[in-house]
Structures are given as C-alpha cells and as structure tokens.
C-alpha cells in the first residue's frame, strides 16, 4: 500500500542550551532541519551520505553526522552545534587555535572539525597526535592536508 499522507511532526529539542519546539517533515534529515527549519547554517552539508563529517554535530555527548539522523529523532535530545562554541567573551580555544594555525582554507569542513575536536577535548584534555588523527578520521578536508588541523587541536589542548 502507498501512504502519501505525510504529516509534519512536532518535536521538542534543546539546541545549544536553548529549548525549542519545532515542526518537521518526518523524512527530512536533522542537518536539513537545523539549516532550513531552525535557520542555523553553521553546520554544513558536504557529501550528505556520512562520509565527510562536514555536518558533524553533538547529540547527548556523542558526535554524529547530522545528515544520517532524521529531524524527528531530535525529540528530547540535547544538541550542540558549532554556533554554541563561541561565547560573548570570545572564541572557543579550538576556534582561536584554528585561526592562529591557519587550519582552514575554504572553511566548509571547519564547523565539523571543530565540533568533533571539541567532543574529544571535552573527554580527553590531552590527546596524543595519533589519538587526534584517529578521532578526526571521520572528518574530511580537501584543502589543508590535515597537518594544520591536527596542530591546531594539539595547540588548543596545551
């Protein structure tokens, strides 16, 4: 049987500390929900199939590719995106280190790298270079060759 009567779903979720009620189409990804419904475009779309990590966000303390999560799955979750990193007092230490180490060129992968790296440093304040490289394997960058990114994460952890 075919059921084309697709109904929007009301969800309650917390994004960067702010609780919100939103209405989502049940087949739309959380990535698209963040960008098109909530209007937070910091999270980027790269491959849209879970290979590049550009859309990395943090849900309940775990990093995920938001292209591979449905918007409706955000119900009751605690979500952190790149927009939640800087404070009115200044950039997050990782953002500052990325600037100082020139750890970006085109910038599309940067929000994903920042959110991934933050999750690592939140749990392991002093990771080895090997650990950083392993942790960031799910984030692709086609500009920098990774060395500057790894250096920036190392710097932020010092």
């Amino acid at each position, binding site marked *: *049987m075919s059921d084309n009567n*697709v109904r929007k779903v009301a969800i309650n979720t917390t994004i960067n500390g702010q609780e919100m009620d939103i209405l989502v189409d049940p087949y739309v990804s959380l990535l698209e929900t963040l960008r098109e419904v909530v209007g937070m475009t910091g999270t980027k779309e790269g491959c849209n*199939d*879970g290979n590049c990590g550009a859309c990395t966000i943090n849900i309940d303390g775990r990093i995920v590719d938001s292209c591979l999560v449905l918007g409706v799955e955000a119900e009751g979750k605690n979500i952190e995106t790149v927009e939640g990193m800087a404070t009115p007092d200044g950039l997050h230490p990782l953002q500052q280190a990325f600037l100082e180490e020139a750890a970006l060129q085109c910038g599309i992968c940067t929000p994903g790298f920042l959110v991934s790296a933050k999750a690592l440093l939140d749990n392991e304040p002093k990771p080895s270079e090997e650990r950083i490289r392993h942790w960031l394997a*799910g984030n692709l960058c086609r500009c920098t060759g990774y060395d500057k990114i790894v250096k920036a994460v190392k710097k932020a952890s010092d």
Partner: protein
Amino acid sequence: MHPFNYYDPRTVEEAVEVLKKFGDRAKCLAGGTDVLVQTRGERYELDAIVDVKKIPELTSVDWTNDHLIIGAATPCYVLYEDPKVCEAFPGIIDSASLIGGIQIQSRASLGGNLCNASPSADGICSLIVHEAECVIAGPNGIREIPVEEMCVGPGKNAMDEGEFLVSIKLPLKNSFFSSSYERFIPRNEMDIAVAAVASSVSLENGKISSCRIALAAVGPTPIFAEEASKMLIGKEPTEENIKNASNKAKEIASPISDMRGTVEHRKDLIEVLTRRTLSKAVERVSV
C-alpha cells in the same frame, strides 16, 4: 526522495504491527547509516520508517548465564566502551571499533550491519566466529537462526516481510577461547574492506578444540569457511597447521575483481589475514 512517515513503536509487538501494515514499503531505522543513505539514493521507496530504538530490548546489552544478548540497534561505541564486553568478545570489539569513523560508531549497530547484508560488512564475520544467533520477531512470533544463515545475497537477508531483528545472542565462552578480526584497506580508517577475515579458537591442553574462520568481501555474502576451520580441530596451533588452514581459506574465497581489488589480490589477502587472525586469536588465549 519519496516522503515517508515516522513511527517509533515502544514494544516488539507494536513494531511488528507497523511493519505488517506497510509490508515492503517500510524499513527499520536503527543508526540510519545505511538505510537513510539508501532511501535517499532511491534504492527503494518507503512510506514508513520504523525507528526501533525506543524498544528497550533493541538497545540493551544483557548478560544471562550463558549468553550476551546485544540489542540489534545498540550502537558500536556502547560495546567498545564496555570493559566486560571487550574482555569476553575481542573479535566483536575489533569489528565494532573500525566500522566507519567516530561519528558512524555513535549510531551504527552490529544488528544493522547484519541486516544490511553487505558482502564486505565488518561486523558479520566476527559474529559468525562467535557462533552468534539472530533473534527475529515477526507476525508469527519469535524465531532464531544462526548468524551465518542471515545473509543470502548482496544486500539481502533471510528475514521475511514483516520480520525484524530484535537482538544478537552470543554464547559465553571460557577463558580458553578467543577471537580476532582484521581487514585490508589501502588507508588507515574510513574505508570498505578489500578483504577481511575473522577467526576464533579454543585451546585445550595445547591443542585447538574449536575453530571458526569467516571471510568478508570475497563472495556474495560473508562466508563461514567451515572446511578450513575443521582442519585445525585437534591440532596444535603451529605455524604449519595455521598455514594449511589459511591456504584452505584462500581456496574457499571466491571474490570478483572490481575497483577495490582483483581476484588474485583478494585471494592472497585472505591467506595472509587468516594466518594473522588465527595467530592473534591463539595469542589472545595465551595471555
């Protein structure tokens, strides 16, 4: 993409009802790392996606007297962050910690890996050598099948319409048992196996009393290399005996040539990886 509705049943029975109602126009959602990509890629058209993660037994990890029961939608990280599971099921942990990157491991499950039935799946061979059983629910109740019977072709599993995987049952082994999984990829992370092997052994009085070898990416499904496994029973784990079993595994492998590797390369890899995983499993028993 064809729009679909979202269902989040709280019990196995409710899930069976929804799946029955929509037939082949519904699929289960666990981590979504395969099903959402395939739906978006229009490999199939769905009217309903059934999120099974709110059914308690789908995401629980339970120890009974003789089994570890892993909910089919349990994400990989839950397994490798559990020291007890790491100690008892090293081959399973080898697999769970190399599927995708950290983001994928936050969501992807061994159950999903199994249902997706990819010939190159990283999780399935380890389940085979651990003698896992699939617990399947459907309109006619619950049934169990050995994991090596689950994959029936590339992307095809043995479940009938309306059925879904509830959990994976792993028999508990004694301390003389161990296992290992290794794959070959041209990079360090985030790739699909060119060839891969899982092996498990039990050692008693210096001899191998049980052995299972399973091969990935060298046939239409993951392969339980039963003949190669049997060759080692009752034998000492010497270099020569392991080499002979590895050559048998190489014979059993029937790969195709594609962008990831040639037939010859893949067969050679199976010999090497069988040797390595058998030796590793033996070494893990000994320590």
